[in-house]
């Protein structure tokens, strides 16, 4: 589309006709509907023209509108699984509509789903405790979809918490969190939530170096004691759980690891992680030291870390690691001796590292360098085989830069992350330029064939980007999401704390086109993965009545209709309750102050969407009882009084009547 059309805000019908030709074709299905609603309006292009004129829309606006509108009852083509940022949750959105479909409670209690209120979900959250301390937020960073043969399989979603180096497992049969694990070796992560091509492992790389296992050592001991680690969480797909006993870490020098990616196809078995702060700066502004931002950016080169994870798993299995905090770590000396770890210099303080769909090339985005640097996996292997390398002060081999590099492409200022489409293009986010660069993946041995093709401005300060299935062996292309940190003037003002801006970009054509601005009203929704909707096949109700969503099996505490009742055993009172529109059975519960309450609730509903809530006044309890779900809440009835409980989901016309009384008699 020509720039002259972009500049003319007021458009005539002809311009709309030309500009929106593609979109009109796409919307032809809707024509009879529109025609019915406004019979006098005439052909679809007249309607589009009239509305465009009334609202002052450009042809590009009309095209974007027609490409993103999803009529009532029709589904989106793709799901976005987005980090919920500081909320500690995961957001699910649809593409191209960008409608919010769900917020999944993960690291933070989430009342709607009863996440962190039911006994079962409390145990999940407790898995994320740090030194016994409950952490009720997370800096959720990188969601990662499970893969089979390098392609998304739509079964599981993993997400990391940078602040506390934790990892959560979400089962995509019911979109609920099943497990949270705390990394026993590191306190903060960043290169985390990246799966190996068959989800054998989930990679979790440290960010800031600290003494291993959350212990103490003064900063003066930085080089001696502080270390990084690359953790490989073993995933048991059958059980749907990470298995800490079969997981391990590889000790790393005290550089700060940034992003990571798994090799695929030819490079399968290896993983790659960028490091920065090879200067090993630790700050000290008041002590007269330069701040970290300057001190960690002094060297021209940092290191791309290469780990042979498949071989590392063998070394781990051979018992060559040491146990720290209950999980095995392979010492750096062993990793070097066994040939598990190498480094290649890379331009200063790079950010993203991303492997091309064919697995042959590793793309490093410069951040402080305006290039993406492309490494050739074969050349790296040859350099390793040649054995001609120096080592850093920790004994880690450093392969020669020139021997490993395939090409460099100058893409613009502040390149951070790269993903790929189905047409041989790569897309790199440019933070400083506030733009997305599209560049051509070139041919091996022909550095000139790697070229910048196109750029599109985004609003503003883009961090991650994501192309539909763009980090797999088979990217879908078509859509790109730019995850912009700043929105500035894009939305109606809502106070000093602005939403962030997920921008949907159409990458199907010769030039990229901005389609939609999606405001995200929570902090730092860091990264997303985009998957074809047809790969995700969730249940619409639980498979049978009495289902425990955490164990994904029939609950031993399920209550069958007819078996409801209250069982007292000393001070322990077990309430076996069913819920169905529009009553709880039993609905009068009388206990003594100090009784230990175990409240088993089963929804005997089987109808889609017939969800009940269970809200109990005074005791901070609100759980979700979805059709078929069995859940339990336990607490001590320590405060006497009369507490109504009720269904907190508007379940039926007699929803308000769906209540009961919980009476706690004073012991005096």
């Amino acid at each position: 589309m020509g720039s002259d059309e972009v500049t003319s805000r007021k458009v005539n019908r002809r311009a709309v006709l030309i500009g929106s030709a593609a979109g009109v074709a796409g919307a032809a299905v809707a024509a009879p509907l529109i025609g019915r609603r406004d019979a006098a309006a005439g052909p679809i292009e007249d309607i589009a023209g009239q509305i465009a004129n009334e609202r002052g829309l450009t042809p590009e606006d009309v095209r974007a509108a027609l490409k993103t509108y999803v009529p009532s009852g029709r589904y989106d083509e793709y799901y976005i699984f987005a980090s919920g940022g500081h909320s500690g949750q995961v957001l699910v959105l649809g593409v191209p509509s960008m409608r919010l479909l769900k917020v999944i409670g993960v690291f933070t209690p989430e009342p709607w789903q009863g996440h962190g209120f039911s006994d079962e979900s409390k145990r999940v959250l407790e898995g994320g405790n740090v030194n016994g301390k409950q952490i009720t937020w997370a800096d959720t960073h990188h969601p990662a979809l499970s893969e089979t043969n390098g392609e998304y399989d739509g079964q599981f979603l993993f997400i990391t918490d940078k602040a506390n180096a934790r990892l959560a497992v979400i089962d995509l049969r019911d979109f609920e969190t099943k497990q949270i694990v705390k990394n026993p070796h590191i306190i903060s992560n960043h290169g985390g939530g990246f799966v190996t091509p068959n989800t054998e492992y989930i990679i979790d790389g440290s960010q800031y170096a600290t003494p291993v296992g959350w212990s103490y050592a003064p900063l003066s001991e930085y080089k001696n004691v502080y270390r990084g680690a690359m953790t490989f969480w073993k995933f048991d797909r059958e059980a749907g759980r990470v298995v800490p006993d079969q997981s391990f870490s590889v000790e790393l020098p005290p550089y700060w690891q940034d992003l990571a990616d798994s090799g695929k196809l030819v490079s399968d078995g290896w993983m790659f992680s960028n490091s920065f702060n090879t200067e090993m700066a630790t700050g000290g502004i008041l002590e007269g030291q330069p701040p970290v931002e300057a001190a960690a950016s002094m060297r021209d080169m940092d290191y791309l870390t290469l780990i042979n994870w498949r071989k590392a798993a063998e070394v781990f299995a051979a018992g060559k690691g040491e146990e720290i905090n209950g999980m095995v770590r392979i010492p750096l000396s062993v990793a070097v001796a066994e040939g598990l770890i190498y480094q290649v210099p890379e331009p200063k303080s790079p950010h993203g590292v991303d492997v091309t769909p064919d697995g042959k090339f590793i793309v490093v985005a410069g951040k402080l360098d305006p290039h993406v640097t492309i490494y050739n996996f074969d050349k790296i292997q040859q350099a390793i085989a040649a054995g001609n390398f120096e080592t850093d002060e920790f004994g880690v081999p450093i392969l020669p830069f020139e021997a490993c590099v395939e090409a460099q492409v100058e893409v613009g200022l502040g390149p951070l992350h790269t993903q790929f489409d189905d047409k041989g293009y790569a897309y790199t986010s440019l933070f400083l330029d506030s733009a997305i660069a599209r560049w051509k993946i070139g041919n091996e041995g022909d550095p000139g064939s790697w070229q910048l093709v196109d750029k599109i401005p985004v609003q503003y300060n883009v961090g991650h980007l994501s192309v539909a299935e763009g980090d797999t062996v088979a990217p879908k292309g078509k859509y790109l999401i730019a995850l912009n940190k700043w929105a500035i003037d894009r939305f109606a003002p809502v106070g000093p704390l602005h939403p962030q801006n997920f921008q949907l970009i159409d990458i199907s054509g010769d030039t990229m086109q901005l389609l939609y601005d999606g405001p995200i009203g929570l902090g730092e929704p860091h990264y997303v993965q985009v998957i074809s909707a047809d790969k995700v096949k969730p249940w619409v109700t639980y498979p049978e009545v009495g289902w425990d969503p955490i164990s994904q099996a029939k609950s031993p505490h399920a209550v069958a209709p007819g078996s409801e009742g209250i069982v007292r055993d000393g001070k322990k009172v077990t309430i076996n309750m069913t819920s169905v529109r529009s009553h709880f059975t039993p609905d009068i519960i009388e206990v003594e102050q100090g009784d230990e309450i175990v409240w088993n609730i089963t929804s005997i509903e089987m109808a889609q969407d017939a969800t009940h809530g269970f809200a109990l006044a005074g005791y901070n309890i609100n759980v979700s009882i979805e059709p078929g779900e069995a859940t339990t809440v336990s607490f001590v009835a320590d405060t006497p009084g009369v507490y109504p409980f009720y269904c907190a989901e508007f379940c039926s016309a007699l929803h308000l009547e769906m209540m009961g009384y919980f009476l706690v008699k004073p012991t005096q």
Partner: protein
Amino acid sequence: MVATPQPSAAASSAAPARRASAISLARLRWRHLELPLLSLAAALLIVSIALPYWHLTLHAPQYPQGLTIDVYVYKMEPLRNVREVDNLNHYIGMIPLTDAATIERKISRFAIPVLAAMAIASFWLRGRWRTLARVPMVIYPVVFVADLFAWLYYAGHSLDPHAPLSSSIKEFTPRLYGTGIIGQFSTKASFEPGFWLAVAAAVIVLVVMLLGRRSRDAAR
């Protein structure tokens, strides 16, 4: 089945001299056909157990796919829809579907093969016993419809006066066949292949009875 009436139809207009031989020919053929026809009818009836007899679809705005229930002689499916209909019915004080026709559903799987076996056994019976062994299968579809209607009538006329929505719904009989409206629901009822197989079986047995009698009358 199609061929058997033809000789007797032809016989009625044929010359008296040829009539006796035509009848004996028909009777000869008839004796050969009677057991296969009774067996066919019995088989159809037994197969009908595995098929739905009656179908109900409820439509309301919040059930865009409709709530469908298939009624078999011994079960109702799918369970989740039966539960949902029961759930909805409790608001107007109607008995649960699962409480209706419990005896019928319990015995049908055993009673129906007995009917079928009786019809086959009738081949070796004579006179009144033969008729008695065949009649149940002939009237079975009528009994099914009458029983279904009785239960529908009972369900619609025994509404619990204390039900939440009892004041907004008067006594009624849900439609046995065709469309109706109850509250925000439009209902559509229809008879299904199982029922039609039972009807076909009944018709076959009836034809056997009539033709058997006719051929005997003719022979006499």
